[in-house]
């Protein structure tokens, strides 16, 4: 088995009496983008939050290359190689751009590798390089998204969990970020679990798609097949 296989089985998460995730099974493979789609409240963000340890599941398992991470604390899961880029507020605005990036690089990387990684991120996202000494609150929405993705990459993850990276961004920037993501998966072979409401864009770069509705998996197939399924698209994906 190659490094970076994320296996989720029977995962169930409740907020009080409300079941947000109901016995969800998903396997995400290395070198693939797995898109998790569905309407607001379908349980997409809860899925990522449960995987990364921010929320405790009521039942089920999360395995990374066979290692059980189900009940590990969030910081241990991060160190095991799962980088979660949370929706919207992932930037620590009180720190500078570079400090934000360095935080990502701290997971075990040597100082030399950190400097090289930083240089790569700045090359990938030139706007960040210009503002490296500024507090991150000066960044625009697109730049913040670049920052959190760059920061996640610096931690050298096996698995990247992305929560609504397109939220609030102009279509051109979405295309740019998704393009970058695809290149990354193809060249570095990371595993990506991509949660999106913007199903059309997500399916355009995904290999596999999973559709959630009210916490349950209602469909799973190759991304192209999902995009071609008119009934499914109308019922759950809204395009």
């Amino acid at each position: 088995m190659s490094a970076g296989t994320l296996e989720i089985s029977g995962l169930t998460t409740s907020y009080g009496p409300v079941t947000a995730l109901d016995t969800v099974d998903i396997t995400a493979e290395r070198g693939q983008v797995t898109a998790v789609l569905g309407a607001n409240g379908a349980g997409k963000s809860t899925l990522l939050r449960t995987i990364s340890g921010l929320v405790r599941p009521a039942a089920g398992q999360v395995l990374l290359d066979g290692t059980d991470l189900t009940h590990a604390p969030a910081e241990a899961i991060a160190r095991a190689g799962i980088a979660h880029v949370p929706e919207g507020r992932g930037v620590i605005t009180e720190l500078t751009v570079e400090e934000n990036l360095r935080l990502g690089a701290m997971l075990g990387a040597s100082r030399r590798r950190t400097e090289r990684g930083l240089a790569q991120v700045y090359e990938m996202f030139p706007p960040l390089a210009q503002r490296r000494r500024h507090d991150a609150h000066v960044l625009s929405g697109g730049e913040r998204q670049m920052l959190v993705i760059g920061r996640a990459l610096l931690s050298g993850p096996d698995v990247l969990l992305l929560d609504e990276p397109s939220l609030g961004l102009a279509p051109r920037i979405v295309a740019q970020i998704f393009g970058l993501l695809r290149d990354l998966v193809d060249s570095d072979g990371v595993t990506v679990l991509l949660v999106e409401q913007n199903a059309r864009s997500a399916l355009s770069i995904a290999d596999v798609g999973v559709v959630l509705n009210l916490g349950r998996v209602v469909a799973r197939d190759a991304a192209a097949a999902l995009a071609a399924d008119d009934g499914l698209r109308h019922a759950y994906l809204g395009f």
Partner: protein
Amino acid sequence: MQQFLNVTLTGLGQGAVYAAFALALVLIWRSTRVVNFAQGAMAMFTTYLALTVIEGGQSYWVGLVVALVAGLVLGAVIERLVIRPVEGGPELNAVIVTLGLFVALQALAAILFGSTFRSFPAPFDLRGFTVGGVNIAFTPNSIYIIVAVVVVMLALVALFRFTDLGLKMRAAAFSQEVSRLLGVPVGRMLTLGWALAAGVGSLSGLLIAGGSLVFPAYMDAVIVYGFVAAVLGGLDSPAGAVVGGLTIGLLLSYVSGYLGSELVALAALAILVAVLLVRPQGLFARTAARRV
């Protein structure tokens, strides 16, 4: 003129101590959103430990180390045992917990060390320098106080600005969730933050005590002055705490010198109310709006 100079110099020395105390309050506020009203009592307690060591025949410097180490340990233990459970809960609960610690520590000190006034030694001469034949209210010990505070502040700046540990501590203070996702052990960082703050608080307690009298309530007024200084600087800003501390030290020294020492606490209250009503975000806050 000479009185003005003396009052100013006295105010600077006191201001340095208030700055350290306010800084300790700010460090804790930034990381856990708790105003540690027990900080004065904690510093009082560690100063008594130092006094016990010194009266046992050790030097002042051994006492200093004992107080600082005891402060670190006390801060860490308190955060772990009684603050952690109320963190993120209703804000009144955390306030009440620190007040409970305040009362309990003060009473415990009275039981263990007695309620009588005891004199605490100063490491340096308490007689003022003579400038042009005139004796001024600036002593070798005042220099020691100011140098000690400056050294600690530089050390903290170095820690927070230039080390990975400091960066992790700041990240944990600003955003717990994001920090955990980046593998930062947030709980440990918060404990460490409390420990450091309590260490700085212990230092200020020890510096105030030097060459003066200690008794279980001797830090009560300092809590108020330190709090006023921290609010003046904006509770979130370490630099603000330092400037606020010096400002409060000077202002209160003028009040004491020209109006009467009984009015010092009242003046502190007036400054606090004025700041909170006129510029609630403090002089150094980054964010424009703050709920006070």
